[in-house]
């Protein structure tokens, strides 16, 4: 069941359509960019996944083949506002997964490149978790927002 409109006063900010559009462009753009770089070189991405030393070979391969498309499509849908909440939900779930994976790598002392942006990737560290957390907040705002005059 759909939630009702948020209580008055609670979300003047998240009902601001321009702010939401801005957040959608930022998060969508990052995901389109990240996904496209991985689509360009799935084997390198598979190797990045293996670097985390969590997934077996076959799973790493399947993730490398399909996940970048989920990123690009979610990002694109979020940007254009097509299945906005579904894309925001998927992106949020992905970000939670990424944060968990990087945190696990840090906890286990696995030194690895994050693999997030193909050859532009940086080290999987605390600042990466913070970046992902900010994107997660943006995505969740878009997910829970009810822009004025818009049903979905």
């Amino acid at each position, binding site marked *: 069941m759909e939630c009702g409109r948020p209580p008055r006063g609670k979300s003047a900010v998240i009902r601001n359509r321009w702010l939401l559009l801005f957040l959608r462009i930022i998060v969508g753009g990052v995901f389109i960019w990240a996904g496209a770089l991985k689509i360009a070189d799935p084997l390198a991405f598979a*190797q990045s996944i*293996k670097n985390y*030393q969590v997934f077996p070979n076959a799973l790493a391969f399947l993730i490398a083949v399909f996940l970048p498309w989920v990123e690009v*499509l979610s990002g694109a849908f979020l940007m254009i506002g097509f299945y906005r909440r579904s894309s925001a939900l998927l992106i949020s779930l992905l970000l939670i997964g990424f944060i968990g994976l990087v945190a696990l790598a840090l906890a286990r002392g696995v030194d690895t490149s994050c693999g997030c942006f193909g050859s532009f990737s940086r080290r999987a560290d605390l600042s990466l978790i913070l970046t992902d957390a900010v994107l997660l907040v943006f995505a969740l705002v878009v997910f829970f927002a009810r822009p004025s005059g818009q049903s979905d």
Partner: protein
Amino acid sequence: MRRLIRGVLVILVLSVVLGTIVNFPLIRRFAAGEFKQGFVDLREYEGIRFITLAETEDLFARRMQGAEGLLFVDSRSLEDFAAGHIPGALSIPLEEVQHSGKPEAGQDWGRMIDFPGAQVLVIYCEGGDCQTSISLAKLIHDRGYQDIRIFSGGWAEWSAAGLPEEKAQ
């Protein structure tokens, strides 16, 4: 709620379809047994191949007998290298190569992975799922070296076999 779930399914199904279509040749190669040792396209990196413990031992014996142009490279961290490595191996920690200096310090990378006189390079890392040997092999291959052998069993397999070890240089 239904629209939410429908949207998620649309994205997932489209991703599977597009991923399959675009990567079909790669999926076939994977199904045929390629990429089991590492995600390196050996058609692209023609100078790289994976070797077993027996082959590594053989190359090590040749090196010990004074074979020229044969070099062992350890891509693990400096600490791991100091704790024990294949005798005579050169320490080139991938993390140092990748993270040394500023992003634009391409020249530094070049200096660290230049091996005058080396024709055959045997690269290893920890073993198991470690990938640094593969990443380093690719970098070295891009520098023009044409005979790079990755010992995928790595240090774990070497030391478990009770083969010669050397500690910090």
